[in-house]
């Protein structure tokens, strides 16, 4: 029976790919299908800031060569969108009107950037940095020594920020409660950290102190492309504005599937959802933490990869629990630079 099993994995991030790798190792004959919205095979998103260091061929970012999927007999379907999961019939519906049936389903859709509702009306004026395409698009928009305004911050945004500063760009971080997301920092420590950021060459604007963001507008001809207006009347010009408020899990396609959701997919520590055939792994998972007595997300490349690995094992006979792999404390080096364990990746 196992030989004939069809494992379908939604999402080809770190978790999905690690799961596929593991599944193949443990079930040489199983049918494995990866589904992704991306046009490219799995590449290292943490690496994307490198586009500002002159790496602009997507092939440089691939983790495995295309031949890997053929050699491993892993079906890789790109630019396909899952719109619905029918847990009873064990099928996923794809946006182009195709139906795909599975024996086991692994949800590894990860998260996408969170945009606070009060900013949603400005969406057309904002940029993203989550995909290779977005990264390249942003690089084209930012001139030599140009300015990038990062709203919020978060460790992904700050990672880009330090690269931008390195490469001679100007970076303004509009700081708020999520500036060090996913780190949770006390008010006192936050103030200190903000100072360190300034020492790192990043300009800081305190959103709250400035009465919040009133509007984001397109700049007039001949001026910077974007203008941010604050409640206080202060203004800030930039070539691109990048909202960076942490991640929200991508679970829309699971609505109505009967799987338990809150913000993410609610899973046991064994990464099992409320449907026996469906597991979840990575940033999309909201896992019960016995220690903290709450459902929580475990971010970071090490955690996500471990989840992918574990989900695959639990899909193929094991029954183990997830153990966090990631140090979550934010360090300051000799008062002049910060270092986040979330910045460590292979």
């Amino acid at each position, binding site marked *: 029976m196992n030989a004939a099993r069809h494992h379908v994995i939604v999402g080809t991030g770190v978790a999905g790919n690690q799961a596929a790798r593991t599944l193949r190792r443990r079930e040489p004959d199983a049918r494995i299908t990866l589904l992704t919205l991306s*046009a*490219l*095979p799995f590449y290292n998103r943490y690496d994307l800031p490198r586009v500002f260091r002159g790496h602009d061929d*997507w092939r440089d970012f691939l983790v495995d060569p*295309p*031949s*890997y*999927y*053929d050699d491993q007999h892993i*079906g*890789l*379907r*790109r*630019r*396909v969108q899952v719109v619905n999961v029918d847990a009873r019939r064990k099928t996923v519906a*794809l*946006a*182009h*009107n*195709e*139906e*795909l*049936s599975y024996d086991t389903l692994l949800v590894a859709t990860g998260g996408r950037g969170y945009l606070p509702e009060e900013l949603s009306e400005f969406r057309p004026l904002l940029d993203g940095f989550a995909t290779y*395409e977005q990264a*390249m*698009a942003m690089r084209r928009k930012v001139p030599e020594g140009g300015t990038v305004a990062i709203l919020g911050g978060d460790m992904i945004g700050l990672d880009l920020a330090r690269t931008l500063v390195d490469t001679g760009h100007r970076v303004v971080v509009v700081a708020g409660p999520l500036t060090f997301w996913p780190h949770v920092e006390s008010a006192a420590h936050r103030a200190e950290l903000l100072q360190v950021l300034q020492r790192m060459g990043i300009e800081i604007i305190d959103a709250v102190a400035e009465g919040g963001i009133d509007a984001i507008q397109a700049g007039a001809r001949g001026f910077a492309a974007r203008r941010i207006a604050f409640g206080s009347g202060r203004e800030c010009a930039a070539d691109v504005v990048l909202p960076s408020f942490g991640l929200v899990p991508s679970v829309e396609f699971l609505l109505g599937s009967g799987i338990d959701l809150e913000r993410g997919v609610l899973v046991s520590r064994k990464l099992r959802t409320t449907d026996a055939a469906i597991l979840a792994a990575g940033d999309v998972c909201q896992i019960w933490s016995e220690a903290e007595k709450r459902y929580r997300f475990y971010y970071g490349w090490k955690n996500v990869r471990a989840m992918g690995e574990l989900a695959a094992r639990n899909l193929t006979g094991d029954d183990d629990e997830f153990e966090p792999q990631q140090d979550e404390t934010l360090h300051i080096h000799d008062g002049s630079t910060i270092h986040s364990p979330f910045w460590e990746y292979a």
Partner: protein
Amino acid sequence: MKTDVQVAICGSAGEGTIAAGDILRNALAGAGYRVISFDAYPAEIRGFGKCVARLRVTTEQVYSLKERSDVLLCLNDEHGIPHVAEVRDYGAVIYESKSIAPLASGRHVSAHVRPAQIPYPLAIRELCERATGAVRSRNMVALGYLAGLFGLAKEPFQRIVEAKFRGKGAVADANRDAFEAGHAAGVQTFKLDAVEFGPPVQGLQSTMLSGNAAVVRGCLDAGLDNFFGYPITPATTIMERLAVEMPKRGKRLVQTEDEISAIATTIGAGYAGARAATATSGPGLALMSEMIGLAVMAEVPSVVFVSQRGGPSTGIPTKTEQSDLNMALYGSPGDAPRVVIAPTNVDGCYRCAGKAFEIAERYQTPVIVLLDLYLSNRYESVVLPSTPPFEANSDKPLGSEELGPAYRRFALTPDGVSPRALPGMAGGMHVVTGLEHNEAGRVDEQPDNHEAMSRKRHDKLQAALAHPDFTFAKRFGDAGRVDVGLLAWGSTFGECLDAMFRLQAEGIRCAAMKVVMLQPFPVDLVTRFLDDCAVVLVPELNYGGQFARLVQAETGRLVQRYDRVTGSPLRVEDILGQARRLVQAARRKAA
């Protein structure tokens, strides 16, 4: 930067697949690229028929299509899926992203795109409906997308579309809007493939012509007066184009009720002194063969274009083959020698068509110009001479002293060609008949006469082997002794030439020869070539090695046959394989 991009467009006949290919190749030729293109399409006009249009777009001169395409445009999933595999790594696969009918698992193109290929889903149908309110112009959406994605200039497309749909109001608008919608989508799409269109060739003023279209140009430049025809795939387009062009030049075209009538009327007009022709395919030639016998007997100039298709009988009307050679050479009651010539590319179609009329007139004979579906429907960007390189009149001069009571229509002369009087000429009155006749044209069944006249009809054609300004056979590649020679005729030669270049690149001494005049046969040229080759490969698209047998019979030399009847053109790869095998065998023997 060199450009060498092959685009394949596939879909059902009804989806405008062929039309899309046609617009694309014309636009690209117009933009200054070199283009070779070939469409494969079914007998059904609409519905389930599967079509593939392939174009190879280059800046360097090439002679055949590539094995692998760089870009695939799928207008529907069912027909697209089998072709995804032909797309090269980092090539682009463009396909419909929103199916109307539910698709079974794996029946969408996206399930077949290999990891190294770049998927470009496109809501073709929806974009079309949004832009035009209808679904007809889906192909234009796809073309627009292609142009937008690869940054091709819009202008040539707009020019072609404008010309193609001139005066068709709403249809023209719909196609323009659909193209624009697709183009916008293409421009917005982030390009991830490794396919690049470099700048076109500076100042290249080529025109995109199919083999049949080139034949038409040749006919017109040679002053064709009358044309009679009956529709048959793949020759029909010759007549269709002539129907448009001849009246413009005060010439006449008549669609007869069948091929029998078509050849008869052609011969009648030829007898009356007109430059006349008809066009057909194998089945039509079969019907005509008796009449061709009459033309031989009556020594009436007449030109028959034969575009071969898959046989025998109704065979495979929409596939290519070179299997009518024997019928063209011999098909008729009795000994009926005629001239048979076969161009090897679109440019050759033009020259052979024009020359056919000179030869027919000069030697008072039917001339069969052998094409095939692959050549007839193949498009190449060609540069035509500004002034036609053909004689307006090739009739053997008829001195007034020869006219009169003593005039003998079939007088035996040194070159076998008798001065021909045309109806209306004073003192030239005579009778032609299908019965054996004497110099005066009177019925004569005497053995001596029959032998003499038969000799006359055969010998006069030998002079055609010296006809001015005509390529009877031509050698390419390395001079002197070679390890392997490729000998071919007709459409097959392009693949042989590209194969030859590849063999040379592999360090194999190699030459290739095309034979254009098949009857009378250029024995000396071919024999000399054969003697230079350690081994000779004769690739052709028929089962019986008709050309190889002809060569062996005419030269007395042995050649290696390579006969394929897949209905598709030969693949360069296959020719290479055969040639390598022969070379290795020869070397082993030598060692």
